[in-house]
């Protein structure tokens, strides 16, 4: 049986404890990849939306969600990977953006600010807040990160890509 008091809000709270395997300061809820939670009798159904279609962390996230909810006493968990809503970096919460910056990543700028990716040539340095930066490559160590260099503090840094 599902514990009597289980609510959708509570499930979200538990999911806060599941982190992005590649950015361990960011929970899946803050990353915005949990796009639906539903309770259906004995079962909890989660809709998981990939950040990038080729993200190899999706399967890990899926199994960690199942493990977490089972450990909280949910008898049956179904996780569906879906493209119903295309993920956007706008889905990252304010809390998530702060966590990213603290971890050394420039959070994605609002995608409402640009219509053409060419203006993404600069980003704000997460270390010194400098803006004298240059994009070195739109592709970084994972699909969701690009590489920049800060001319002020002379350090390379990564930005979570706006999408």
């Amino acid at each position: 049986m599902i514990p009597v008091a289980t609510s959708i809000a509570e499930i979200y709270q538990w999911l806060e404890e599941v982190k992005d395997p590649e950015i361990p300061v960011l929970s899946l809820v803050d990353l915005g990849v949990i796009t639906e939670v539903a309770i259906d009798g004995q079962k909890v159904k989660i809709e998981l939306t990939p950040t990038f279609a080729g993200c190899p962390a999706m399967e890990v996230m899926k199994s960690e969600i199942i493990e977490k909810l089972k450990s909280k006493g949910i008898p049956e968990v179904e996780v569906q990977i879906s493209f119903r809503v295309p993920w956007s970096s706008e889905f990252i919460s304010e809390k998530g953006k702060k966590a990213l910056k603290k971890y050394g990543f420039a959070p994605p700028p609002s995608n409402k600010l640009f219509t053409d990716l060419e203006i993404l040539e600069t980003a704000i340095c997460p270390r010194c807040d400098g803006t004298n930066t240059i994009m070195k490559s739109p592709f970084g160590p994972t699909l969701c990160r690009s590489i920049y260099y800060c001319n002020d503090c002379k350090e390379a840094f990564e930005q979570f890509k706006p999408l």
Partner: protein
Amino acid sequence: MENTALKELLYKMADDQLILGHRNSEWTGFGPLLEEDIAFSSMAQDKIGHSLALYTLLHQLGEQDPDTVAFTRNANQFHNCVFTELPNQEYDFSLVRHFLYDTAEAIRFEMLSSSSYEPLAQVARKFRGELRYHTLHAKTWITQLGTATDESISRLQKSLDEAMPFALGLFEKSPYETELIEQGIFAGEEELKKRWLMKLNETLSKTELILPDWKILQPLEGGRMGKHSDHLQPLLDEMSEVFRLEPGAEW
């Protein structure tokens, strides 16, 4: 059978993504700059991710599971265009192919984002955002190297001349073209080609490069019907080598 047309469309797109994804991955460890090594590897990952999403749609329509479809077919059962299976050659050829192919790919998924087949429209809307990074990458390098030195310009021009007939093979028409257009699934190869040529000219006009006169070129077609060059089977053998060792293995 309405699904026949749809499946044919999905197969050719999925196979294009898988095969070019594999070719891109061959740059891993060999790129001319570390950033380019990473760029081609990342684009490989994206493209193979896209093929997985498209094979999953096919699976939902009753085809076999994505791994079986990707790893157990022979060359004559693949529907990718010949362009995607050509060896990487030197970096200039890979870059030109990336530019020509990804420009078409981005427009194709833009068009499909309003497809009447909603599951396809959903994945197309997803790919669209990702592909902006691919076209940005291609455009940046073509513009820079296409205006840089005599050597960079002549190398790109030579590759462009060589690649163009193959690139035109991308738009080989499906036997179900009319059906797809009438049902609102896909607006068709002819429309795609028209938009593609416009987009190419937009970028090339900022360089010293000249788009070959496509009207007098004979497109190299056949891939969509399973007629491939000798380069595809060795690629498939290498790609599926591990899978075939133990087909039912759990990873």
